[in-house]
């Protein structure tokens, strides 16, 4: 062999070697994960820690984070998904799920679940939570966390106002709110309010619904074909909120513009004594104002109800589920990530970090910190007293119609009766559309 041939052979071997070495790196798959909780301090920290563990266990998969603000989530996803793009794996709350399924934006996970044992794998999930993610017998997502909305209150402020126990009825709630609305400095302006209700789009659904349901009313009939906004219960709930804002002034001024995070900030800064929140709120409030000592000062109780209606539904589920993009180029890897997020260990971590109950019964029933937590002990019985908001594609439009009607009545541009009657008529028209 000539020197020239030797050099050529050596070079070929070198190139082959490099190609072989480069092989595993080029086979690495990047999954895009998007979640509105990546845009929130506490949740973001927890998610990134979990994903670091996933990447360590799966060196062939890298996760690219795509945070999105809750208010912008559907705008961003719908634009991307319509164009056949978007994140590989993403999180949704219960509201838009049916629309995403209808549009074909989320992957049918049934074949993946079948490989894990099918019904046996799903048996650990609460059947009620699987309802929203299931359509025509196909499972399109897996519920990760759940929380009923609870009356969340600052025990110190209640005690200071001479209120021994959280209000159980709406009459008690109204009186307590009035009592705790005051100026904390002599001669100063009112700077503490009894309660608040989120009336901005982000968070309205979960909060107003518990007042409506607490009064025995609801938005739609059980089969989601008729508006129930003309019921006496709906009228009572509507008037109750308006009177508290206009007459009692026990909600902060500018309440129409307060969103969920704004509300939590007011609670964190002792400006508001009672609010309707989910279990997730405690670590967030603790993060906003560590000096409050939220874990100690805050307490949770069931949503008030009128006497005689204690057996009815009175709360609303918050639920976060994980979905796969139907156009994902890496479905196997995406499923691997979803499965990882659903592991018991990850559910437990999520509870420790974020105080949220799992979608899996076994986690909630056996994990010691959950069993010993004062918030979950108050919330667990309420899972049976809560319901999802209507699971139909038209729900976001219906919800916005109700929100606008309530705001119009609060702004006095319509009487409460007129605003509710208009909302009822508009919802009927929305439901009648094909």
């Amino acid at each position: 062999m000539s020197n020239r041939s030797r050099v050529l052979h050596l070079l070929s071997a070198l190139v082959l070697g490099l190609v072989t070495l480069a092989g595993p790196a080029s086979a690495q798959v990047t999954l895009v994960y998007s979640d509105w909780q990546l845009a929130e301090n506490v949740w973001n920290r927890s998610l990134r820690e979990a994903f670091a563990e996933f990447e360590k266990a799966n060196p062939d998969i890298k996760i690219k984070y795509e945070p999105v603000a809750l208010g912008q989530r559907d705008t961003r996803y719908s634009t991307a998904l319509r164009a056949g793009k978007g994140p590989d794996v993403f999180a949704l709350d219960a509201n838009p799920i049916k629309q995403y399924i209808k549009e074909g934006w989320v992957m049918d996970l049934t074949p993946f679940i079948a490989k894990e044992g099918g019904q046996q794998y799903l048996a650990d999930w609460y059947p009620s939570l699987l309802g929203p993610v299931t359509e025509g017998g196909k499972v399109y997502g897996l519920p990760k966390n759940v929380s009923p909305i609870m009356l969340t209150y600052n025990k110190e402020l209640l005690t200071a106002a001479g209120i021994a126990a959280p209000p159980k009825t709406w009459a008690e709630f109204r009186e307590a709110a009035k009592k705790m609305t005051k100026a904390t400095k002599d001669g100063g302006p009112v700077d503490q309010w009894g309660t608040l209700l989120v009336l901005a789009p982000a968070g309205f659904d979960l909060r107003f619904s518990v007042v409506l349901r607490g009064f025995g009313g609801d938005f739609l009939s059980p089969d989601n074909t008729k508006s129930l906004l003309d019921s006496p219960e709906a009228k009572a709930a509507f008037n109750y909120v308006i009177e508290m804002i206009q007459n009692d002034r026990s909600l902060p001024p500018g309440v129409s513009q307060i969103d969920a995070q704004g509300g939590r900030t007011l609670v964190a800064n002792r400006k508001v004594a009672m609010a309707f929140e989910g279990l997730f709120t405690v670590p967030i409030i603790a993060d906003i104002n560590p000096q409050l000592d939220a874990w100690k000062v805050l307490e949770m109780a069931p949503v008030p109800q009128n006497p005689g209606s204690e057996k009815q539904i009175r709360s609303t589920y918050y639920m976060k589920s994980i979905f796969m993009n139907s156009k994902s180029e890496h479905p196997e890897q995406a499923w691997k990530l979803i499965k990882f997020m659903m592991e018991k260990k990850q559910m437990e971590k999520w509870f420790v970090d974020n105080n949220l109950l799992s979608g899996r019964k076994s986690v909630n029933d056996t994990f010691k910190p959950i069993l010993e937590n004062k918030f979950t002990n108050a919330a667990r019985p309420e899972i049976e007293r809560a319901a999802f908001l209507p699971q139909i594609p038209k729900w976001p439009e219906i919800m916005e119609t109700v929100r606008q009607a309530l705001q119009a009545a609060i702004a006095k541009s319509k009487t409460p009766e007129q605003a509710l009657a208009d909302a009822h008529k508009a919802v009927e028209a929305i439901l009648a559309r094909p």
Partner: protein
Amino acid sequence: MSDRANGDHKVNWTEREDVKGVLFVLPALLLLIAVLGFPAVGAVLQSFNLLWTDKPSFTFAAYRQLVDDPAFARAAWNTLLFVIATVSFHLLIGLLVAMLLNLEVRLKWLFRVIALLPWTVPDVFAGLVWRFMVDPLAGFINSVLITFAGQTEPVDWLGTSTLAFGCLILAEGWRAYPFIMLILLAGLQAIPPQQYEAAQLDGATAWQSFRFVTLPNLKTMFVIAAVLDTIWECRLFGMVFSLTGGGPGDATQVLSLLTYRQNFEFFNPAYSAAIAVALAAAMLALSVPYLRLTMKQTV
């Protein structure tokens, strides 16, 4: 004898003036078709449920909904009121500032820069800044009213329909008046000084000079500014979205916001496209006076 000498020389098509003209404008025309034409056609097709839908089928349903939907009627009315108020505000303030900036004063360049500043602020950001300013709990305006004006409790500026509408007009009036001001300033600078001198010789007062010299000379500029600003304000989205979000209720919900909501929040792309097409048709009609004026000047 050559053809040229005979006078029946056939001009090569590439040398023809009209062809040259077309070739010159072709790149811009293709760009316009790509950037504006395709989306416009797409929107029309979408409004008939022919595009971006899982089951395409030709239907007028979205246009029928336009007629029946009280939310559309309310948003159209809000848009009309908002545009009339904002454009009037812009014309008034724009003229006033343009006349001040047309005066011969020291540091005129600095005043011009200051007057232009609001125009440089993105509308979404301007809306957020105004929102913080009028916030009932932490807002600067309520602090001033409570501290210095004897107000006992904060005013809920964005929680009352008329006040929210007023805030929106004021905020957008402030942000976008420099556009009108610049057009009118250009018009003012084009007025020959001899006309003012002649008026002065005739004994005209300052008001008479303004009434009979300035205003007639600015007429064309007024129309151009008003039409362009009307089209701009009809499409305004960012300011409304970030300042009031259309509220309270639907008191400040304009057509552009309703279009956005129907598409991105309610997932009704066909209806959203129908609203956009209706708005575009209205704006096309509005642009007729502008086109007539500008074409008359260039011919």
